[in-house]
């Protein structure tokens, strides 16, 4: 094969010869025309090599004409914009495009990995399973890295993707998948009734295969007729047409996803800020599948040589791009359609002859081919291909189906082959959502049968291969779909167009063209080109007992490549059928799964990247914490200040400083994230009595009470302080993470179980900014804020509530304490939160106020032995386990979880109980979650008797403290336990009361 250019002097409906486009392929500068694909432009330059195959590293060229292409996977773009594994047949050329071939090293023409091909007898079907099973440890460290390097697809991009992506939802009455003659006709028919019609096509130009279809509609070529309809749809108010948009999946209730390549073809669009891809999430009332059909290759010896392509691809090269696939070609077929390719090639001045496996056939196209002087050899097959980097010739053998191999053969020189084994309706989307299919003997392929969803298939997708029937059924489907949505829809009378098309002889299945001489020895008959699966591999799998086609698929990897078996599926089944003597419908098909073709991770993420990756909740004073140099921790979706390290301290130092400030002076905590729920109604008190373990009906107005909540199983789920605002009106506080869950929990009980209760529950968490002023000087701070109410200890004691003003700020003040210090939680409407925070810091300055974060909060409460639901509890912990029996009412008739606490296993011995721990070495802090063991052994397993639930260094006590749930813990007071930790170390700690500081609770009560 010489490197002479193959651009024809004329022709090429898609290209604009006045616009030259400069690009590079593997670094080599080339030119093409606007409208070219990378595939056509590279072919025009005289090169046919596009990549190396996955397993054997065989040289490969273009086979298909669109998304079914399996060989020519290329990488496009540089650096962070590099995208691997794109099909060269779909990559639209633009000025400055850089593309590279894949899976070759060091170069496309000389590839070291091709040695795999020489040793291919050692790489049979299922070789992964046979070879790399032993020893097990080799898989991770030796085999996998090796295989990854030699069998591979493209390289990942370098660096962060600079482009943007987005998603959009759309509802439509009718979604038409595919913009060929069938899809356009159906869409127009549906839109005529006023239905909202969405049409998606994966190509840049509408019309599908119309330009490669013989016949005429009302005297015009098929494609011209299609383009007129396309223009009408683009103009319509109730239709939306998406080009460069692949429907990648179809799910239940007619939910589909469309992958739109918005900017890939035009760098100027991307530079202007357009999203590169857009993912459409479509809810369609009716779906019409007009996905067309995909041509089948034929399995003959060395059918993967560069220069061997589908007949439709050869036609497209000539008709669309004015590119000759070669100078002297052979059309190898089992059907009439490929004769169109022969005629097309002849017309373009290319020498061509036809090899037809059928003994006889007598369609109009065959007659026309013969009358044009093209040599036609009936009853013949290609039995071998010569040449390795390209085609230099073929051997043609006589063939008769069912009569075994015939050994007469002749040699014919040629430089390309256009093959056609028939057409398979593109059923993928039909099947994604459970559509049934049936085998069609005429097509020798599957076609749509029933579908449980509102889906119809038309045209080639439905196995309807002629123009007249396609137009008729598409029109009917379009009208039927619209009618299903609008039963009263009226349609303009449809006048059937006058259609002329050639008659066709039936095809004859050809699953395998036997090689003469050396059978399958170094001469591979490829079925799945992308995964290098051959006829011999499939036959071997049958001999080895992989009877189920799903097992054959996984064992050989046939149909498992990125092309999802578009070209290989039926051929593979044909081979299995011949090997087993079962019919294809008996064998059945493998499962079609989304996506139809690969789509980008960018489109899956959409705009939800970087700052939008996860919703982050900010309190009204958030910016203050940021400015103060706080480090943050996530609490649910909130970001709470963990500690304020802004002045260069390490975290332990700042945490200690904050704790000591609260113990000795005063601290300020942003507690706005606490859940807040208003509960009101004549039954509110009784309702709370049932929700909490303790009693709230006895709470006095203006007072606060700490409550525990269990689920029906008797396990703790939340805790917090509830305030009685009025006789029938309460304000409940929940944990920060529990706010939404508890609001829903309350509603559930009211709506489903206790429907007689008159209680309203309104969550108000976000209405309030809430700050804890805690420490011996807390009241002094409050005083400086000019309260309009008496804040003396006598007038405003611990566990009470006041509503009033601090200066100009309207506030609710709760005298409650999670630190054990004198403490006021001050709530103000959220929009005033930042202002009040600043005011408190301002007046607190001279009293030594310091902001403290969540870690100081946790240490302070641990010093006091206060539990945190989720730390001291794990979903299987009862109030009794954590020593809060006193808060479980003995008097109330019923409350949630009461019955469960009576169960023997919750009352019995050996429950894990909450205790305090003091390590023998005061400075040593137990790791959170460390296990206590009954007996220390040399190595695990050791019997565990409990675990550390919270563990800190307490600057107040100048030593470590911890809490733990320990089997029978309260009976073990004074006992020393062993905690084996990392590094063969054992930490020993004594069981003590969990209240480490101010056991009498005097500090909060002054």
């Amino acid at each position: 094969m010489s490197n002479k250019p193959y651009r024809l002097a004329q022709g090429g409906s898609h290209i604009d010869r006045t616009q030259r486009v400069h690009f590079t392929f593997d670094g080599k500068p080339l030119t093409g025309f606007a409208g070219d694909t990378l595939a056509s432009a590279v072919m025009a330059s005289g090169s046919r090599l596009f990549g190396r195959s996955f397993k054997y590293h065989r040289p490969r060229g273009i086979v298909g004409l669109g998304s079914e292409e399996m060989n020519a996977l290329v990488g496009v773009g540089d650096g962070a914009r590099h995208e691997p594994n794109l099909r060269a047949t779909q990559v639209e050329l633009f000025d400055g495009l850089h593309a590279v071939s894949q899976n070759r090293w060091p170069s496309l023409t000389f590839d070291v990995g091709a040695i795999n091909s020489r040793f291919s007898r050692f790489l049979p079907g299922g070789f992964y399973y046979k070879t790399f099973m032993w020893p097990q440890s080799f898989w991770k460290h030796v085999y996998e890295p090796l295989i990854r390097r030699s069998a591979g697809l493209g390289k990942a991009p370098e660096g962060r993707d600079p482009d943007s992506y987005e998603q959009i939802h759309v509802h439509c009455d009718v979604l038409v998948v595919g913009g060929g003659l069938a899809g356009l006709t159906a869409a127009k028919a549906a839109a005529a009734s006023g239905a909202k019609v969405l049409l998606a096509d994966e190509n840049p130009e509408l019309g599908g295969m119309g330009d490669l279809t013989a016949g005429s509609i009302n005297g015009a070529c098929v494609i011209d007729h299609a383009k007129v309809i396309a223009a009408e749809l683009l103009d319509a108010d109730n239709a939306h047409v998406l080009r460069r948009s692949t429907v990648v999946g179809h799910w239940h209730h007619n939910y589909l996803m469309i992958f739109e390549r918005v900017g890939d073809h035009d760098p100027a669009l991307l530079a202007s800020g357009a999203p590169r891809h857009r993912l459409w999430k479509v809810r369609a009332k009716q779906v019409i599948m007009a996905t067309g059909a995909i041509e089948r290759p034929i399995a003959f010896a060395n059918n993967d040589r560069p220069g061997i392509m589908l007949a439709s691809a050869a036609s497209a090269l000539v008709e669309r791009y004015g590119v000759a696939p070669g100078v002297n070609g052979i059309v190898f077929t089992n059907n009439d359609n490929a004769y169109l390719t022969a005629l097309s090639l002849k017309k373009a001045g290319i020498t061509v002859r036809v090899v037809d496996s059928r003994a006889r056939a007598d369609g109009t196209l065959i007659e026309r081919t013969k009358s044009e002087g093209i040599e036609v050899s009936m009853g013949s097959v290609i039995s071998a291909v010569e040449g390795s980097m390209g085609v230099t010739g073929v051997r043609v053998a006589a063939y008769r189906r069912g009569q075994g191999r015939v050994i007469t053969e002749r040699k014919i020189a040629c430089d390309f082959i256009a093959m056609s084994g028939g057409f398979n309706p593109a059923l993928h989307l039909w099947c994604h959502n459970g559509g049934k299919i049936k085998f069609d003997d005429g097509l020798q392929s599957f076609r749509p049968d029933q579908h449980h969803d509102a889906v119809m298939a038309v045209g080639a997708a439905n196995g309807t291969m002629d123009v007249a029937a396609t137009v008729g059924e598409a029109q009917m489907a379009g009208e039927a779909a619209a009618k299903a949505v609008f039963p009263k829809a009226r349609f303009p009378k449809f006048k059937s167009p006058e259609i002329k098309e050639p008659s066709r002889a039936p095809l004859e299945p050809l699953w395998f063209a036997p090689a003469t001489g050396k059978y399958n020895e170094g001469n591979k008959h490829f079925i799945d080109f992308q995964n290098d699966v051959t006829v011999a591999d499939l036959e071997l799998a049958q001999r080895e007992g992989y009877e189920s086609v799903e097992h054959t698929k996984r064992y050989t990897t046939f149909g498992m490549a990125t092309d999802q078996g578009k070209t290989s599926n039926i051929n593979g089944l044909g081979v299995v059928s011949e090997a087993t003597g079962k019919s294809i419908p008996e064998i059945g098909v493998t499962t079609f799964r989304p996506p139809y073709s690969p789509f980008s991770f960018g489109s899956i993420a959409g705009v939800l990247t970087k700052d939008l990756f996860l919703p982050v909740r900010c309190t009204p004073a958030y910016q203050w914490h940021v400015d103060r140099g706080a480090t943050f921790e996530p609490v649910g979706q909130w970001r709470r200040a963990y500690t304020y390290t802004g002045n260069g301290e390490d975290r332990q130092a700042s945490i200690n400083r904050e704790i000591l400030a609260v113990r000795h002076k005063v601290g300020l905590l942003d507690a706005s994230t606490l859940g807040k729920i208003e509960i009101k109604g004549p039954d509110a008190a009784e309702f709370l009595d049932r929700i909490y373990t303790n009693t709230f009906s006895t709470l006095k107005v203006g007072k606060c009470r700490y409550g525990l909540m269990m689920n029906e199983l008797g396990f703790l789920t939340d805790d917090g302080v509830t305030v009685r605002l009025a006789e029938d009106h309460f304000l409940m506080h929940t944990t920060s993470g529990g706010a939404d869950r508890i609001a829903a929990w309350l509603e559930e009980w009211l709506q489903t179980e206790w429907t007689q209760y008159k209680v309203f529950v309104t969550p108000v968490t976000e209405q309030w900014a809430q700050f804890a002023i805690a420490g011996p000087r807390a009241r002094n701070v409050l005083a400086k804020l000019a309260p309009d109410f008496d804040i003396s200890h006598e007038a405003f004691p611990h566990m009470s509530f006041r509503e009033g003003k601090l200066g100009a700020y309207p506030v609710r003040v709760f005298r409650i304490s999670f630190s054990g210090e004198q403490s006021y939680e001050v709530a103000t409407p959220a929009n005033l939160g930042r202002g009040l925070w600043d005011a408190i810091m301002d007046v607190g300055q001279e009293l030594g106020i310091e902001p403290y974060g969540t870690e100081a909060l946790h240490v302070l409460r641990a010093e006091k032995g206060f539990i945190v639901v989720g730390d001291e509890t794990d979903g299987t912990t009862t109030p009794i386990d954590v020593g809060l029996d006193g808060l479980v009412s003995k008097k109330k008739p019923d409350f949630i979880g009461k019955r469960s606490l009576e169960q023997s296993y919750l009352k019995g011995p050996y429950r894990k109980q909450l205790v305090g721990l003091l390590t023998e070495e005061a400075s040593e802090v137990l790791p959170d979650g460390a296990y206590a063991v009954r007996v220390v052994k040399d190595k695990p397993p050791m019997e565990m008797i409990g675990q550390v639930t919270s563990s800190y260094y307490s600057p107040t006590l100048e030593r470590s403290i911890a809490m733990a749930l320990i089997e029978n813990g309260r009976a073990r007071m004074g006992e020393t336990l062993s905690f084996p930790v990392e590094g063969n170390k054992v930490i020993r700690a004594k069981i003590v009361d969990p209240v480490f500081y101010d056991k009498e609770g005097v500090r909060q009560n002054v």
Partner: protein
Amino acid sequence: MSDVYHETPLSHCAPPQGLSIDLREIKDRGMIDLRGFASDKTFLAAAKKILGMDLPRVPRTSASWGDVKALWLSIDQWLILCAKSKVAELVVALENELGDRHSLVVDVSDMRAVIRLEGEGVREILLKGSSLDLLSNDYKSGTVRRMRFAEIAALLHVVEDQVFDIYVFRSYANYAWDFLLATARIPTRVKLFGKQI
């Protein structure tokens, strides 16, 4: 301390540039969460007396009287909108009129951020974060709908054909705002169902 410092959730955001619609925070909207049984005629009458209108009882609708609006939130919950300066007065009036009737009136003016979207293509922009059929006749002026928007909960109010308010909980204001900045950029504009070039 003689005056309060007031800061709405998005007050720190600069007016956006380069968007295909107008996007701004509504800073002065007062909001009252009103609970009561729609089956309780005395409740409805009391509410009407103060608000000057019947509370909407058809799901996903709203009603208005002067500059006061009532948005249907559920079978026993309404969001009353008014000028922020009128909230305190209205809460007291409602509470007084409702008296002992089973009801709950809460000032929630600071609980949500209100974002106004206005202009041609506003529905398409919202469709980038919502799976509702916003192009259908269900979403005409006055429609109210709670929805999932992007990854968060939001309340949608169709003010006019091309004017939408979305309400998000205050803590998510930045997230919602940033999502809209990303999806409303001029180069990302989508026009659905109409003449195409």
